[in-house]
């Protein structure tokens, strides 16, 4: 079964607005990663947060992790049309740093 489940499945916003996507998972993790997939392209790693971290920033991205609730959120601030993509969370279970389990993704559309 899927370890990570993103919410919402689809999100449509206007350029300049913030976008928040959530991810829930089921078992204990070593780390949680977010990836972006543009139409017609492979996945690109965005950010990794370890199980002992609560918040991480990278440019316009902010990721939070709540291990007690087994959930994470990805915030994209000041969105751009180029941010239009599918966003996936992926979890690496405790004891394994390679066997990522991906959710089904959130399709983000940023309208110009």
């Amino acid at each position, binding site marked *: 079964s899927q370890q990570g489940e993103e919410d919402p499945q689809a999100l449509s916003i206007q350029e300049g607005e913030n976008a928040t996507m959530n991810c829930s998972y089921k078992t204990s993790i070593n780390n949680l990663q977010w990836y972006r997939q543009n139409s017609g*392209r*492979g996945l*690109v*790693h965005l950010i990794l947060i370890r199980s002992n971290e609560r918040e991480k920033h990278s440019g316009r991205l902010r990721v939070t992790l709540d291990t007690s609730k087994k959930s994470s959120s990805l915030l994209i601030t000041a969105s751009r049309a180029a941010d239009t993509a599918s966003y996936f969370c992926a979890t690496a279970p405790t004891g394994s740093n*390679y066997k990522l389990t*991906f*959710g089904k993704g959130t399709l983000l559309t940023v309208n110009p």
Partner: protein
Amino acid sequence: GAGVSQSPSNKVTEKGKDVELRCDPISGHTALYWYRQSLGQGLEFLIYFQGNSAPDKSGLPSDRFSAERTGGSVSTLTIQRTQQEDSAVYLCASTPTGRSSYEQYFGPGTRLTVT
């Protein structure tokens, strides 16, 4: 530098035929992964290679699927007697070794269509 490359980018095959998908990881990356992404779904882990260690084949969906990695570099995923449910995008990824090697670098994928 060059990223992960995969070939072919698209493959259409008839049900029952065998197909081979190729992955060329980033030079120096010792870990290599294969995933399958069906339409509208997340990625499904298939197999993992790390150096000379025995591969983790736990994600292969049936014995029709097999993979090799020759010389610790190029990998080939083979699907025998293809079925329509095998239609998907097959993605390959690689990572370097070391504690910071959690990030996976993905190739563009091979879109397989079984008719």
